């Protein structure tokens, strides 16, 4: 026991050393954000003579950080709900039903990961549905892009859940919906939360869909806010990186929050007996 504890201590130290090394690029992001305009664009890991924390005031105001944050949230939250909801249902079907149709459907969906967004045709589609320049349009396109990815992950994990669970639940009188909701989903918690975070990350960091399909630059999401600092013939790197840094904070919080929510070592106690 003591040996394992000491091993773990050493492991912890090693992980911390590499972890801190891993964060060096972040350090450069933060340093650049507090430099003056003369040195910010050089991207050197040097400490500026003066730390210009007032840069963040400019970033907050001109970068429309709060606006961007709200725009991003209003798009990301429904997108996550929609894509996780859709793909959880879909992956349950694909994992459980072993028919030619379901195998074909699985490959069909996974193929969706191979092709990039087709801007012109998607634009025309949204236009014909009057969804241009709407957040709903952006949500739907982002969801459609995300579904293959989240389904692929979830199918792999649903398949690890034994069929006996479904049998037990059906014996108890559950219809498929309750079986899904009360039995399967709880067991998928680690996967579900992880996939949720990845979907959230994809939506939060997306700088393509929102750019092309939202023509009103007041609806710009957080990643697009950096473009406000692309000035005439120059880019104000210190402000840009301040904006970039602020964009990462909500996701980090979401990740920490999500990690705590996953209970360790799920016990599949319901199978026994």
């Amino acid at each position, binding site marked *: 026991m003591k040996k394992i504890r000491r091993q773990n201590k050493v492991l912890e130290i090693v992980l*911390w050393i590499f972890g801190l090394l891993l964060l060096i690029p972040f350090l450069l992001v933060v340093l650049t954000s507090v430099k003056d305009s003369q040195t910010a664009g050089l991207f050197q890991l040097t400490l500026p003579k003066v730390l210009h924390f007032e840069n963040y005031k400019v970033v907050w105001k001109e970068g429309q950080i709060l606006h961007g944050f709200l725009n991003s949230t209003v798009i990301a939250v429904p997108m996550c709900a929609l894509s996780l909801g859709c793909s959880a249902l879909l992956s349950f079907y694909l994992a459980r039903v072993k028919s030619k149709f379901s195998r074909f459907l699985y490959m069909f969906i996974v193929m969706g990961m191979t092709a990039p967004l087709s801007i012109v*045709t998607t634009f025309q589609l949204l236009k014909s549905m009057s969804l241009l320049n709407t957040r709903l349009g952006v949500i*739907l396109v982002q969801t459609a892009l995300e579904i293959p990815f989240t389904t692929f992950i979830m199918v792999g994990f649903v398949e690890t859940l034994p069929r006996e669970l479904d049998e037990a639940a059906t014996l108890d009188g559950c219809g498929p919906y309750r079986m899904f909701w009360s039995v399967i989903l709880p067991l998928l918690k680690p996967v579900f939360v992880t996939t949720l975070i990845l979907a959230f990350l994809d939506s939060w960091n997306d700088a393509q869909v929102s750019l092309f399909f939202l023509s009103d630059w007041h609806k710009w999401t957080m990643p697009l806010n950096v473009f406000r600092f692309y000035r005439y013939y120059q880019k104000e790197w210190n402000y840009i990186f301040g904006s970039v840094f602020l964009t990462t904070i909500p996701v980090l919080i979401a990740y920490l929050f999500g990690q705590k929510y996953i209970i360790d070592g799920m016990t599949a106690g319901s199978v026994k007996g």
Partner: protein
Amino acid sequence: MKTRTLRSRPAIRYPMTFIIPAMAVYMIFFFYPTVSGFYYALTNWNSRSTTIRYVGFSQFLDVLKNPTIELAFKNTMIYSITITVVKNILAILLALALNAKIRSRNTLRAIYFAPAILNIVAMGLVFQGLLNPDFGFVNTALRAMGLGFMANGWITDPKMAIYCTAIMEIWRATGISMAIYLAGLQSIPQDYYEAATLDGAHGWSKFTGITLPLLAPAVTINVILCLIYGFRMFEVIYYLTGGGPGDSSQVMQTLAYKYMGQGLYGYSATINVILVVFILVVTIPLLSYMRRRDSRLM
């Protein structure tokens, strides 16, 4: 193996309605526009004329004859395979390490995941700064530690450039693979380990007997994801090296973008279609194989 009980097995219903929401959104907002977009690969759509002329598959042949395509293709393979192998090995090790009983585990997990949340454009600039051969942090640190011989041109060296992009991607996305492996580890019921300990098994055999086989689906997921997104990657290469110096680190997607920048939209679409076909041809058989293996292991 499932044993048949004397009792008749209950009929479990998996209604088709489960697939409707996902399929609706997917078909309308992705499949339909993307496949219609493929049509442009057969045309000479460009920035100079409003009329779009059908040219058929001759454009495919032109693209394949383009000498830069060969280079881009080779780079795409190098990039994709390097990151898949390295990311997965590192991610499994990290997931195992961060699943152990360590006090600051949650914080550490956040740290290792953090690179994935940073905007890729910003990241490209940061790495360009860090990898600057003359005053970038990496070379300066190497020289200070007496490892000056390891200091090289990084992204300014045509032979190293594509590997630098692989390094940046490994830095960025190992945390994602790690997160998936962690989810996999957390899904393994603890009782399996307890039962094994009772049976007298110890560390290594527990690992090979329980952990690895039950991680097989996670391995499949991660390998396929790394490969597909590796073949398709644009941002990491573009924002770190721009395909340069010269064309030495061009991959298929950056090359397609370059031609788009020249106004050759149809030509660019052809490159995209060729890439999609290639990915399908490689990953579908691989995926089938891995899934068959998974169901055997389970």
